[in-house]
């Protein structure tokens, strides 16, 4: 008994230095934060830009300095650009993408779910989706304009089509990812087909649907700006296009900055939505 007691008592007195804490050596980047490196890289790129612009290695017409871009941003913020204020441009783009996203989610999620659940729905919707989904949206933009006119309807229709497919396909994949054990468990607890859909299939597919929406928003921004470059009188894409007509490179940079900020804000918002709706993701 005394041997066991001795073996169990701590071997080192408390006054000694704390022990060296060790952990398993990690492969790859491990778990240390990359924030400092990322910030330093960003600053270095800015410095490089400033340096190249300052030395005039590249013609000033093609590459404005960072401070000129900031000046341009302030002037656009104050006075607007190309017959509209900054907020009208940003608002026009946001209204298009948000409207199209809402329609694409409202149509894509239920159609995708039905494609995962029913052979008929899958057979019917597979053909058109597989046909048009790989096409670049700009290839059918002319058709949209011919059919729906030059106004908002054609652009929103184009965006909706571009965003619909990733949402529908991910909803379908979400249904397929529901394990048969989970379905059997619900059935043996007396679930009807409708209860099975609402309580098991829909929540199980939700993480994949949200991933699909995230992909769709990425596709949406690309399509939106391209569509506005071609046919619009408002919007961030139009702002860039009209600036490039006057070789106003600083304004082009401002436009690019705004798109980057909007896209980043959307990604961030989607993360928050995921954390709120599917806190269990990756947990089971």
């Amino acid at each position, binding site marked *: 008994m005394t041997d066991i007691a001795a073996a169990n008592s701590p071997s080192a007195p408390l006054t000694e230095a704390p022990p060296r804490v060790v952990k398993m050596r990690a492969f790859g980047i491990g778990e240390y934060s990359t924030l400092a490196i990322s910030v330093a890289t960003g600053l270095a790129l800015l410095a490089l830009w400033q340096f190249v612009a300052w030395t005039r290695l590249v013609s000033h017409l093609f590459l404005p300095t960072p401070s000129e871009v900031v000046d341009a941003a302030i002037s656009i913020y104050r006075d607007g650009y190309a017959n509209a204020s900054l907020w009208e441009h940003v608002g026009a783009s946001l209204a298009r993408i948000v409207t199209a996203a809402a329609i694409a989610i409202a149509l894509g999620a239920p159609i995708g779910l039905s494609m995962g659940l029913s052979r008929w729905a899958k057979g019917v919707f597979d053909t058109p989706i597989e046909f048009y989904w790989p096409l670049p949206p700009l290839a059918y933009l002319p058709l949209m304009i011919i059919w729906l006119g030059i106004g908002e309807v054609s652009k929103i229709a184009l965006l909706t089509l571009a965003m619909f497919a990733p949402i529908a396909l991910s909803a379908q994949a979400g249904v397929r990812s529901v*394990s048969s054990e*989970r379905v059997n*468990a619900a059935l043996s607890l007396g679930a009807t087909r409708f209860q099975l859909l609402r309580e*098991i299939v829909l929540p199980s597919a939700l993480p994949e649907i949200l991933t699909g929406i995230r992909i769709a928003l990425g596709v949406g921004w690309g399509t939106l700006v391209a569509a506005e470059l071609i046919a619009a009188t408002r919007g961030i894409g139009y702002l860039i296009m009209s600036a490039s007509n006057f070789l106003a490179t600083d304004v082009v940079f401002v436009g690019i900055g705004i798109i980057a900020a909007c896209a980043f804000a959307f990604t961030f918002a989607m993360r928050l939505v995921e954390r709120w709706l599917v806190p269990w993701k990756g947990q089971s």
Partner: protein
Amino acid sequence: MLRVDKASLYFASRDGRPVHALDRVSLDIPERALVVALGTSGCGKSTLLNAMAGFLPLSSGSITLNGHAVEGPGAERGVVFQKDTLLPWKSVAENVALGLKFAGVGRAERRDRALELLRLVGLEDFADAAPYELSGGMRQRVGIARALAPDPAILLMDEPFGALDSMTREQMQELLVSVWARTGKQIFFITHSIEEALFLGTQLIVMSPRPGRVVARYDLDFVETFARDRDARAVKTAPTFAGLREEIRAIVHQTEPNRSAAQ
């Protein structure tokens, strides 16, 4: 009473040939009985349970519960799976109450009933935890409470403790005996552990693979002794227990296809 009458079942294998999974299995599970099916993997014991649960149709033969033919899954046959199938977006109490929700029971009553069942399995303090915060053994206890919630006539348990460590497993066996003694449910329990089968069963069937069929049946009383005296060690070290364990081990080894093919 659940009655399995000459149940045969063929699966289609990948190359299209039928695989004989169950061969004229007959079995009665009377009221209050705890019937354990024991066998090596591939002996058809899970197939038999899936057919009882209504997940699988039979090729021939019949399964009836209190005279009514089993024709699909239903709330009168509760199932506990080997892999826990709890829903991560619901709390432990909501998971337990799922079957009551399906039956249209109101929120307050669902909660009361769930807490009562969680008390039965010793988890009343975890009612509002998320399932993924629990250990494997605790999750299986939630699974048992959930299966009991709609008050089924029979509980079907498919190797529920197979993935647990041996110490947790023994605790779970003792818990199951208390639940069984307290609720008086008839239970069909699958395992590949001889000791578990002997300790839990009022009846034991030994199954052999290819095709799955019953090769031996025993009536046992160890579980009743344990339910009365609560002394697992005494039960498991009794000479009759050890003797039966060796006898059944010999039968199970005989049924292993590799062994018989080699000779």
